[in-house]
């Protein structure tokens, strides 16, 4: 690392992004820019929600932070270390079920330990602890296809927790769930977050979800994704989501997003119309 690009941030920060950009299929005809100039600092134990219209690159940023994709520009650090590969310290939870269908629940949860060559007893013990925390200890020996969608996502959370991550990355994890289950899962996630002390980066396009969960909401512009604004949600927890402050915040966030959604629509229409 040369001296001029030396980071000007605390190396204790959970995630630091400086000038991060991503262009897919760079250098080809199909190249398109997903992200531009992202500067972001996330404190340990902070709950940050990425909010933006579909296709704005918020999930891309999550993948870059996870180390699953390389940034085209800029640099990402996590606790002072440059991010260039995936790490068990940064667990990613997907929207779609990502449990291994051929493994039982406890084997899924302890997959990361099996990778490290832990013994069967140790794996079962850690899996039991993690499943206890998500309230699914009884489902330990079941297979994923025997569980409901909400239970599967809880198992996915347990699997991430079993790695004792410092950063929990969640890509619209509750998007496929019904409204009631989603509300329960949000409460559940807040409990898990409080217990684990990890930072959570949570991607969503639901404003309600952002207000229910976040310490700060990062609002993205439409493509290429840039940070439009960072909006603090300073409501005390546990939150009363029906309070006037919460309502006011939802309205403000809706307005912030509206321009971007309109722009995204106009862009998509222009794209669909032959020139």
């Amino acid at each position: 690392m040369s001296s001029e690009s030396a980071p000007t941030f605390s190396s204790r920060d959970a995630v630091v992004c400086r000038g991060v950009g991503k262009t897919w299929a760079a250098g080809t005809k199909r190249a398109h820019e997903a992200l531009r100039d992202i500067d972001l600092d996330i404190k340990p134990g902070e709950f940050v929600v990425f909010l933006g219209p579909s296709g704005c690159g918020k999930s891309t940023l999550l993948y870059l932070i996870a180390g699953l994709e390389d940034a085209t520009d800029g640099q990402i650090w996590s606790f002072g270390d440059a991010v260039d590969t995936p790490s068990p310290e940064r667990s990613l939870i997907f929207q779609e079920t990502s449990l291994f269908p051929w493994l039982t629940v406890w084997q899924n949860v302890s997959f990361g330990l099996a990778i490290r060559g832990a013994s069967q007893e140790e794996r079962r013990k850690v899996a039991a602890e993690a499943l206890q925390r998500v309230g699914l200890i009884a489902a330990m020996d079941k297979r994923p296809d025997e569980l409901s969608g909400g239970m599967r996502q809880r198992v996915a959370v347990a699997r991430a927790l079993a790695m004792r991550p410092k950063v929990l990355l969640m890509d619209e994890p509750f998007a496929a769930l019904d409204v009631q289950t989603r509300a329960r899962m949000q409460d559940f996630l807040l409990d898990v977050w409080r217990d684990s002390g990890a930072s959570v980066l949570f991607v969503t396009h639901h404003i309600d979800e952002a207000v229910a969960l976040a310490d700060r909401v990062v609002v993205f512009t439409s493509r290429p994704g840039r940070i439009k604004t960072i909006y603090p949600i300073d409501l005390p927890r546990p939150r009363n989501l029906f309070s006037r402050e919460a309502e006011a915040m939802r309205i403000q966030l809706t307005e912030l997003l509206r321009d971007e959604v309109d722009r995204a629509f106009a862009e998509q229409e222009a794209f669909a119309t032959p020139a």
Partner: protein
Amino acid sequence: MAVVTRDGEAGVAAGASRPAAATRLLASRLFTSMAGLNWLAKVWWTCLSISLFAGLWELCWAMGWADEKLLPPPHIFLDNIAEQGRFFNTATRWQVGTSMTEGPSAFESVLITGAATTMRVFVGLVLASVLAIAVGVLVRYYRFFDRLVLPTITLLSPVSPIAWLPVAIFLFGIGNAPAIFMVVVALFFHMVLATINQIDTVNTNLINVARTMGASKPQIYARVIVPAILPGMLQVLRMNLFGAWMVVLVAESTGVGYGMGQVIMLARNTFNPSLVFFTIAVIGVLGFTFDWLLRLAQRRILYWLPDTAERLRVL
């Protein structure tokens, strides 16, 4: 009065509904007990399906549409199994001076011939699958290997197994080896391409989960990609099983000594349609059994897969 009548009617209605409910209960009990006999229903349907086909054939014969010298119906070609079985006798095939009556009995001959052919199919199928999966995984694992090997495999893939027949004889002469070689060569190239296709369609999320948990490339292949492609590969294997049965006959019809293919050739050369159809029937039974065993294995190995056929039933 009116009240009484209404009561009377209600009473009659209740009385009528009680036996009806009992009947329904009995029927439902009968059905649940029959659920355990599901396989019996399957056997029944299988028999019905075959009987229907045989019946139509017999009808054609009875109506005089099918000449029994060319298309002998089942009751004719199954009539004298001992007589037909004689032609399966492997003991006399290439030994000058031994008569058809020596060696194993007719029944044993059919068993020996069937077993020999089945063994060739089985060995060929196992070799082809193991080689194809290994090569397919290597192609995706090493880019270098991909570039070096895949063009040739794609080039050889459309070549008909018949074209390999002379090669099989040049290389392996006569016996089991050329027949097994034919099965392997007929399946291998397709199965490599199928393996690669299966690997390419593995859910990216599963791979990414393993990556974020710190799995290395070999671990991702061993613990995610191989289990994830198994269902598809067993399906490919089942499809190729029939291919193997087809090829093995061609291979056996030339210079293997004994086997179902030899019997077919014998029947052709001696103009014996009964023997042709009898052999076809034996091959059918063997292939059917093989497929059934493979399906059983599939259900055992792939315990996590839901029954998709049942999902389509409701349409």
